[in-house]
């Protein structure tokens, strides 16, 4: 019977093919979206874990600012006094307190904004994923700069080159260039902390302090956060809060894409409905002959429903294949536009996502096939003798 079903579907290859294309795109979108949700959370968690910190001290503001600062080097108008760093370093639970000073330099001529980040040795120690290109080394003086891979490419600089910042009228020596990491580090200019504070006229001020604890257990994190929260003008953002902020941010984007996917799915369903209904109308006499020669109503209903299922599942499988092969390309296309995109790849099709997409599309296909199958099963066998159909 399955052979008959397949042959019937391929009787109109263009119509079936177009239905398959629509279903494949819906399935691919759905698979990507479902995989993306899981991968994004995992990648963000990995990025935050990789920093080896449990919390950040930031100027009073919303958790988003703290989170953004942690991963993207964003800046704020307000800043923290260096005394906050000293208090944090003296806390018995703190293993490492790494200060950061971040500032933006608008480059109106080039229509871009450069982000400059002041770091000290403790902060560099936290960037354990940094890999230098050959010839690079760490800061070797107050006027040395380490460039992210994209920043180096934009400025056409390599280790040992001079770099002049016209906006601040400062000359730097490129001490190192980082290999591409896929993180926001790629586009940043790293300079010694003191240099950054002087350059932007805020000596003794910090924009954030990353905190690593000796014991990263939840009770210890809570107790330390409560103590550090008392530092005037500062607020503590824990890793869990940051993760929550990122996931909330991405949730709205996911909702939008899900809405588009649902629309695509509904359109595909109408396409399946149309294909199967057209098959029923086109084959009225054949179906009536099948009823006349002994196919039951239920048998005919099942056969038509099976056509719908075969089309739907085939579309879903093609879509998963499309997501697996084209997902990477799609990720590269949308990655720059993602809020706080993590460095890890986001698009690896998970079994869960593939199974969920297939099940959803198959169920939808069954729904789309119900009415045409019912119409087919209602065909009277005597129609087989009519010549006008």
């Amino acid at each position, binding site marked *: 019977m399955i052979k008959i079903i397949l042959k019937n579907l391929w009787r109109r290859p263009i119509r079936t093919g177009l239905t398959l294309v629509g279903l494949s795109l819906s399935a691919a979108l759905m698979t990507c979206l479902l995989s993306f949700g899981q991968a994004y959370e995992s990648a963000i968690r990995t990025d935050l874990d990789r920093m080896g910190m449990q919390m950040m001290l930031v100027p009073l503001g919303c958790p988003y600012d703290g989170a953004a600062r942690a991963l993207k080097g964003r800046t704020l108008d307000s800043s923290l006094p260096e005394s906050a760093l000293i208090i944090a370093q003296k806390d018995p639970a703190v293993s490492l307190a790494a200060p950061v000073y971040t500032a933006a330099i608008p480059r109106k001529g080039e229509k871009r904004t450069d982000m400059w980040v002041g770091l000290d040795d403790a902060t560099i120690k936290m960037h354990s994923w940094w890999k230098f290109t050959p010839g690079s080394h760490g800061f070797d003086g107050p006027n040395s700069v380490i460039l992210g891979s994209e920043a180096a490419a934009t400025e056409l600089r390599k280790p040992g080159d001079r770099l002049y910042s016209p906006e601040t009228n400062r000359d730097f020596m490129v001490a190192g260039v980082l290999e591409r990491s896929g993180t926001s580090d790629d586009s940043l200019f790293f300079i010694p902390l003191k240099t950054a504070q002087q350059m932007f006229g805020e000596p003794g001020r910090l924009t954030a302090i990353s905190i690593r604890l000796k014991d990263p257990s939840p009770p210890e994190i809570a107790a330390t956060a409560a103590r550090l929260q008392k530092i005037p003008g500062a607020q503590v953002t824990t890793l869990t809060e940051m993760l929550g902020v990122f996931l909330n941010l991405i949730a709205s984007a996911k909702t939008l894409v899900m809405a588009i996917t649902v629309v695509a799915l509904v359109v595909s369903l109408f396409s399946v409905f149309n294909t199967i209904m057209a098959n029923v109308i086109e084959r009225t*006499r054949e179906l009536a002959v099948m009823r006349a020669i002994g196919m039951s109503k239920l048998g005919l209903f099942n056969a038509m429903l099976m056509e719908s299922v075969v089309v739907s599942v085939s579309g879903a499988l093609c879509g998963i294949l499309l997501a697996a092969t084209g997902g990477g390309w799609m990720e590269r296309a949308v990655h720059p536009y993602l809020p706080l995109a993590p460095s890890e790849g986001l698009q690896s099709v998970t079994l869960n996502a593939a199974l969920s997409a297939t099940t959803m599309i198959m169920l939808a296909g069954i729904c789309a096939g119900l009415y045409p199958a019912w119409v087919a099963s209602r065909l*009277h066998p005597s129609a087989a*003798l009519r010549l006008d159909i």
Partner: protein
Amino acid sequence: MQPSDQPVVQANKLVKSYPRGSEIVHAVVDIDVEIQQGEYVAIVGASGSGKTTLLQLLGGMDRPTSGTISIAGKEISKLSDRELTRLRREQLGFVFQHFGLLSTLTVAENVALPAILNHKPNHSRVDELLERTGIIHRRNHRPSELSGGEMQRVAIARALINEPKLLLADEPTGNLDSATSERILELIGELNKDGLTIVVVTHNEKLAQCAHRIIQLSDGRIVNTA
């Protein structure tokens, strides 16, 4: 097949009416028919005389408005749709004027279809019937690659696959030229000689003359039986 006393089809006071707009059309009126096993019956009459409606009733494809009809000893008004479908599948064979072959299937697959529906696929019987109907050389061809006569032979082979008690044919030569009609006529005659009960609706005089009995219909009534 040996003739038995029990008729294959027994119809009493058959009436079939259906609405057409505001009026009721009486397609078949007070028909009593009894067809014995091994008989070859031709139903003739002008267009609209009720031939096809009668064939539908005799073939269990439709139920009468009133009257009773027994097919292979079973009163069809007492059967559920599932039982009636099973009766058609197991006891009856159908040959249609338009052949009714599935265009996507090969000749062999078309012939095998009723056996598959009956959950008793039998490849050797398919070949045997194709041999008998002289179409074995076309076994793997599709209907679109066959002539009208060849298609009707395939339809006859398909009708015989489940070894029916009764073969019902609706204008089996209606779409064929005279030479091809002759060969189909011969084939039907041979099947009857082998003991198969046959009911044919036809306009073809030659086909009707081959029958043991001719039932002539007019306005839904039997006007002559010869």
